[in-house]
């Protein structure tokens, strides 16, 4: 087999391959043998007919075309291997209008998209802005309040009417044109006033009612109400049976020691603060990794082939479909509700898909540059971990993975994880640059112009002093806004990375 690279245009490669007549003959013979093994000819048991007869019966041309079809992908990948290229798409094979013939070499051209060349940029020691981890008192307070609410007790209320936040028990019933509506009937129904479990009208009306008081008022049913009752007005009757209020436990050391292992309130607070801090630090670490990774990706030049992006986007769509189905929905239903098409979704997914593909390529390139590899032990460890997570037998899982050819992807995953660790490990967290309070040139110019018209020329210094105060706010706001945008983007990245890992 002779292979030549005849053209390269970006990621598209054109190969010219010539298969020698011996190779063609070999393919032909192999195909004929295979056909003979199952050929059914009258007078012979299936597969027992002599090859010569089978050949005569089917005709050389048919067999040869079959043989070429059968071998083509092998020839193609052999040619790619010879040139050291990796295809990312199905090749387009062009036989140039020639029918293959025995005793003559077969030439063909193949056009295919190959793995793009990855021009790695900086990826070692990347500087990532460090965000200080701060726990505000208010956050601790919120957490404490939640804890108190959890341990709140309900106390019966006497001597006052219903108030917002109370838990009340009531008999509910409704009539439509004098006829009772069964669906709206409930005895001793307990709900929180303001908990939005019942119609807004009911919550409104019930305030200030006292025990055993009964009140009737109209309620407009929501449009989505079943049985054609949507939008109708019913007469709703509420009879309050019981009122209870939530009593929050007092913030004392005693309470703290009752509900936790800590003896004092202060220690409990401290623990909560520590937990919040730990959570934030984890998030900050995640963000750091994601940001370093994204920086490495952004520094890298890759001309991404469209097919790779599209395949990735399709995979993401498939994931999306699966998640819909796991919630009992269908993609078709979603498309209808969102008034969109599969094509449109894929189109909107492409930017993210492109980033994911690029990230993968960068990680592979980094792994290669740094000689990162996955050992068999690491693969086994990962399988064992997966087995433990899904409570399956390690051996069974390994066999299944092996059968489905899922071992190699695992190995790649480990290598990529190592590349992520490498990039993140070498990244340097940097204090954020101080906010830029200087006045932008444009503002300065405007100010100068303004002051020039108002004041006499040469009043430079008062104009500058004046300018400083109002200019501060927009400048600061401007500086903050991109930072926020970036943070959002990073969350996306972190999610992608997490999704990939799972």
């Amino acid at each position, binding site marked *: 087999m002779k292979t030549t690279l005849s053209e390269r245009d970006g990621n598209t490669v054109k190969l010219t391959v010539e298969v020698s007549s011996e190779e063609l003959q070999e393919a032909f013979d192999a195909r004929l043998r295979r056909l003979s093994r199952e050929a059914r000819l009258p*007078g*012979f*048991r299936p597969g*027992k007919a*002599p090859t*010569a*007869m089978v050949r*005569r019966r089917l005709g050389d041309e048919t067999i040869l075309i079959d043989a070429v079809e059968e071998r083509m992908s092998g020839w193609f990948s052999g040619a790619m291997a010879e040139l050291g290229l990796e295809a990312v798409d199905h090749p387009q094979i062009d036989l140039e209008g020639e029918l293959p013939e025995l005793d003559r070499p077969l030439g063909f051209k193949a056009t295919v998209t190959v793995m793009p060349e990855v021009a790695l940029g900086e990826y070692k020691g990347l500087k990532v802005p460090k965000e200080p981890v701060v726990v505000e008192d208010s956050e601790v307070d919120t957490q404490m309040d939640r804890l108190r609410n959890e341990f709140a007790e309900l106390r019966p209320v006497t001597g006052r009417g219903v108030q917002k936040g109370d838990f009340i028990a009531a008999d509910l019933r409704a009539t439509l044109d004098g006829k009772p509506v069964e669906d709206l009937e409930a005895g001793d129904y307990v709900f929180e006033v303001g908990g939005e479990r019942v119609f807004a009208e009911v919550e409104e009306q019930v305030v200030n009612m006292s025990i055993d008081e009964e009140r009737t008022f109209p309620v407009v049913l929501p449009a989505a109400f079943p049985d054609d009752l949507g939008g109708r007005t019913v007469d709703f009757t509420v009879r309050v049976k019981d009122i209870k209020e939530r009593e929050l436990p007092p913030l004392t050391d005693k309470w703290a020691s009752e509900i936790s292992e800590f003896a004092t309130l202060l220690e409990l607070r401290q623990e909560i603060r520590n937990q919040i801090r730990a959570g934030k630090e984890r998030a900050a670490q995640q963000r750091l990794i994601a940001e370093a990774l994204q920086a490495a990706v952004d520094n890298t030049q890759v001309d991404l082939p469209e097919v790779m992006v599209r395949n990735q986007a399709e995979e993401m769509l498939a994931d999306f479909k699966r998640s819909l189905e796991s919630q009992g929905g269908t993609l078709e239903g979603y498309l209808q509700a969102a008034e969109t098409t599969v094509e449109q979704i894929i189109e909107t997914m492409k930017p993210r898909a492109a980033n994911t593909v690029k990230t993968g390529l960068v990680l592979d390139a980094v792994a290669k540059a740094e000689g990162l590899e996955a050992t068999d032990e690491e693969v086994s460890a990962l399988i064992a971990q997966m087995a433990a997570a899904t409570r399956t037998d390690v051996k069974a899982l390994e066999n299944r993975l092996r059968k489905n050819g899922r071992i190699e992807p695992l190995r790649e995953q480990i290598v990529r994880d190592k590349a992520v660790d490498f990039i993140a490990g070498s990244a340097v967290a940097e204090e954020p640059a101080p906010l830029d309070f200087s006045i932008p040139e444009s503002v300065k110019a405007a100010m100068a112009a303004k002051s020039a018209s108002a004041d006499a020329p040469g009043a430079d210094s008062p104009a500058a002093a004046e300018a400083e105060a109002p200019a501060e706010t927009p400048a600061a706001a401007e500086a903050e806004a991109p930072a926020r945008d970036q943070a959002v983007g990073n969350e996306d990245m972190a999610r992608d990375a997490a999704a990939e890992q799972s």
Partner: protein
Amino acid sequence: MEAREIIIRPIISEKSYRAIDTNRYSFEVNYRATKPHIRAAVEEIFNVKVIGVQTINVKPKPKRRGAHAGVTRRWKKAVVELAPGNRIEFFGAT
């Protein structure tokens, strides 16, 4: 009887194929043909030297298709042995 009337068709089957190894070729022949007829006909058509002829009267086999009962046609099979070095190109085989 003309030679072409005597030899009706070659028998191509696993069994007949195996017999070719011992230089014996099988044919369906005219039911009324005798061994000398067959010998002469094969020698004439294929231009070979025949050293032996064996014939078999293939008996009718009962067949039925639903309510209709019947039998297959009776026919004569001949296995012809050729002198060493002689060959018949059976449909390009061997």
